[in-house]
């Protein structure tokens, strides 16, 4: 763990491009070619897929010559209609044509003339056949050739596009990513209509063979970041990747930091915006959550809606969020520190009210606050996991227990309840769930410091935290940018959000070293026509 970096500030390690280790390269050694005998191939495949009842194969003889053909596919992964309707039909139709389907070019003839399917590739190895079958394609094997056809018929029922539950908006697009990678990248493509939007494919996970795509805008992105992302992705060697969090944990810069260093979203508009300003998105098959790198801390305090509201509203909401952040982190700590160490800081009447409220309280303030905070966290967790109707019941009971009964029974002082409630509300005011989690963890640290060292301890904690924050890097971009290092031009989209017509440049630290920094050619401040001028 490196909470500090001493000496000269290290530059982000210059990303050097290691040739990505593509899965095929390694497996090629033990990846035998297909045999030209259909029967051999069939037995091989059957042994590979022993005890797989969903593995389907269908033999048929095509053409007037009755050439044996074998179709291999996974039941449920393929689109049944395509298999029955298009593939089988076209193969049967060969018979009625006059074309001879035997010999070395049979496979080309079938591919080029008969199959009424768009996505067909030739494959030659057992491994490829295996992969094709497992990813939902139909593989066509032909007697007499060592080649096979991979027919793209992927089609299984996925969730339909719906509004994301985690990132609701009042104004703005409501569609969210689904679990299907193809659907997701298509949604992105619909928003960014340029060939410069590049998607690069990786397959991660030895068992899950999860497809991962990185998306970036060529010409805008910092190519070093892309290379670094590719390098880090190619180094991943695990058996399974079931969610983007697997990747996030393996490619982040500081694994032991409490702070999330990679942002994620399930909203296509947010991902598109990130890509357009020069960030790289990492799509993972099977999850709607797409990673965004590099990430800066301010991103966690921004919601996509900030850009859809008028800038004055967005700015004021952002300022409120920074207040929330401070409250969520420090409020209980400050309450403890000030009431138990620095009574002189309180206005006299407030001191008297707090004292009166604490009259007869059995536990010290620290224990009181800690108990209430833990109870609150427990309630939140319970409400989150339980089915909705039960969750509501839990929160009602919990609210009553915490808010009413505990105070009535003189177990806790009402002021503590107010403080904990305020802190809870404040932590929900942070748009990013994972960043709010980090703040919640740190809050307990701050409480411990405040109860032992008072305000001095709180200050010490904030100091260490700030030192850690400014030392963090995300793919070469300082985490606290544009505050540290300070960059006035990038401040236009940080604490405040300037109107769109005033945001002429892309953020410097993300879209580094490129000529495509300018977003708009002119200063586009709207000027209504002057009525007096004729």
């Amino acid at each position, binding site marked *: 763990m490196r909470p500090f970096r001493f000496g000269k500030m290290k530059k982000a390690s210059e990303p050097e491009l290691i040739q990505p280790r593509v899965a095929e390269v390694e497996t090629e050694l033990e990846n035998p070619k297909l045999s030209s005998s259909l029967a051999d191939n069939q037995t091989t495949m059957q042994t590979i897929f022993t005890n797989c009842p969903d593995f389907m194969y269908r033999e048929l003889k095509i053409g007037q010559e009755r050439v044996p053909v074998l179709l291999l596919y996974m039941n449920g992964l393929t689109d049944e209609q395509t298999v029955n309707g298009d593939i089988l039909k076209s193969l049967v139709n060969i018979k009625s044509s006059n074309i001879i389907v035997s010999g070395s070019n049979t496979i080309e003839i079938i591919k080029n003339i008969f199959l009424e399917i768009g996505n067909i590739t030739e494959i030659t190895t057992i491994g490829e056949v295996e992969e094709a079958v497992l990813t939902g394609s139909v593989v066509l094997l032909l007697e007499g050739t060592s080649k096979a056809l991979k027919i793209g018929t992927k089609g299984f029922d996925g969730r339909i596009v719906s509004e994301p539950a985690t990132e609701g908006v009042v104004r703005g697009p409501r569609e969210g990513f689904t679990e299907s990678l193809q659907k997701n990248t298509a949604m992105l493509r619909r928003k960014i209509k340029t060939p410069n939007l590049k998607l690069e494919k990786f397959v991660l996970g030895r068992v899950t063979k999860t497809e991962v795509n990185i998306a970036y805008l060529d010409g805008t992105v910092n190519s070093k970041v892309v290379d670094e992302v590719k390098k880090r992705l190619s180094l991943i060697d695990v058996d399974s990747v079931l969610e983007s969090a697997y990747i996030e944990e393996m490619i982040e810069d500081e694994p032991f930091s409490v702070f999330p260093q990679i942002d994620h979203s399930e909203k296509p508009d947010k991902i598109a915006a990130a890509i357009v300003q020069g960030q790289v998105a990492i799509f993972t098959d099977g999850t709607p959550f797409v990673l965004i790198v590099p990430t800066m801390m301010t991103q966690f305090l921004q919601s996509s809606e900030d850009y859809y509201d008028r800038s004055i509203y967005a700015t004021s909401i952002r300022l409120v969020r920074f207040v929330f952040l401070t409250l969520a982190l420090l409020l209980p700590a400050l309450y403890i520190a000030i009431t*138990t160490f620095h009574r002189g800081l309180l206005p006299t009447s407030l001191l008297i009210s707090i004292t009166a409220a604490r009259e007869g309280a059995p536990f010290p303030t620290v224990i009181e606050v800690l108990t209430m905070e833990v109870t609150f966290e427990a309630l939140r967790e319970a409400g989150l996991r339980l089915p909705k109707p039960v969750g509501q019941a839990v929160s009602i009971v919990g609210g009553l227990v915490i808010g009413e009964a505990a105070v009535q029974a003189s177990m806790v002082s009402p002021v503590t309840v107010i403080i904990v409630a305020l802190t809870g509300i404040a932590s929900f005011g942070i748009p990013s769930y994972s960043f709010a989690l980090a703040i919640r963890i740190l809050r307990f640290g701050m409480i411990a410091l405040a109860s032992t060292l*008072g305000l001095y301890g709180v200050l010490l904690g904030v100091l260490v935290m700030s030192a850690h924050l400014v030392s963090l890097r995300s793919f070469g971009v300082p985490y606290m940018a544009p505050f540290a290092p300070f960059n006035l031009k990038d401040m236009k989209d940080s604490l405040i959000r300037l109107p769109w017509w005033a945001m002429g440049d892309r953020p410097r630290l993300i879209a580094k070293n490129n000529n495509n920094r300018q977003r708009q050619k002119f200063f586009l401040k709207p000027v209504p026509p002057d009525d007096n001028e004729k």
Partner: protein
Amino acid sequence: MRKLVLIMVCLSIALLLTGCWDYKEVDRLATVMAIGVDRVPGSEIILLTVQIASTQGNGSNKQTGGQRGDGGPAYTVMNSEGKSLSEAIRNLGAQSTRRILISHCKLIVIGEGLAKTGIGEIVDDLKRDRQFRRTDRILTTDKTAKEILEKDIALEQVPARGLDLIMQNFETAGPVLPVNCNDFFVRLNEDPHVSSTPFAQLQDIDKEVTRQLEKAVGRPLDSEGKPKTLTIAKTAIFKDQRMVGVLNEEDTRAHRWLMDSPKGSSITLTYTPKAQPNEEKGEIQLDIIDGKTTIMPQISENGITMNIDMRAKVSLHETGSADVNVRDAQKIEQIQQQAEEAMKRQLEHTIDTAQKELKSDYVGFSENLHNSFPVDWKQVKDQWDNIFPTVNYHVSCEVEILNTSIISNPTLRSEPEE
């Protein structure tokens, strides 16, 4: 590894430099709102009275006449004695279940006995004890401090808070110049060693009003009779750590004009029309909206002369029974003139009292001399007590009536028919 050691060293230094451990739950503290110090003349013992905010009753704040909703009083008064103030405070701990917290104390009341025998000793302790703030206000009384602190103040749960609010109001407007510890100590330390504090009195206003009314209606009034009321309208003058005298209400007002600014105070003058002697006299009240007093020293072969120049912008608040047509510029002129004269008389009276009676320079002469002629001041500084009574002064006042409200003529008088 070296980094880790370095971090550890940094953190341990940070932890070792924390200073005193001062953890205390608020419900284990007794919050002192005001302290009062008395001494019986001739005795060595300091008698300490503290007013402590009472917080019993689970924070229900409904009050009924100084009582909390559950019947307990909102404050407690505790007493102790000791050879010095700090010993007395320490002795207080012997009877209190809670630690005495003085940092919220707003007010220090000095009883007459102590004020007359000398406050040097307690001033030293007030300065040294870090729990006393330099912003605490000081009040002197003609009774004992104990009596003052045991008195309820109307509309306030904790009397100390009420007294503090009265003083706060005086900051912007009022007859008396409020004084905090810092002002008080600095003035006592500086060369003429003269300082002032507001002077509180217990007066039986209720009894007086009842008596007058009874006389008027000719029968005993059906009135319950309230306890004495605390009023702050005078100023105590301290010289060399001793109270040397008390200024009356008029001198107090002029003292404030001289030391601070006339803004916020008011003048009541008896208007005597000059042109038509048969017109009615009347009490006219003028509120000073804005004003400035400057004292300019002048050194000549005759000695030191102080030129006091007071300018006030006033609004005509009340004309009483005087027949004044405020649309008449001449009348306004007359009122202004009479106000100027009244003010001048008042200022002269106050300065005379300072020079002849109390022989202490509370009117700020030395301060202005020091500021304007630092070199000459150094020469006269040591004999200032002798020089001050002989200093010549010249007072000039200028009053300007800015507004007379919308009403131009006294309301209850019919306009003369034309």
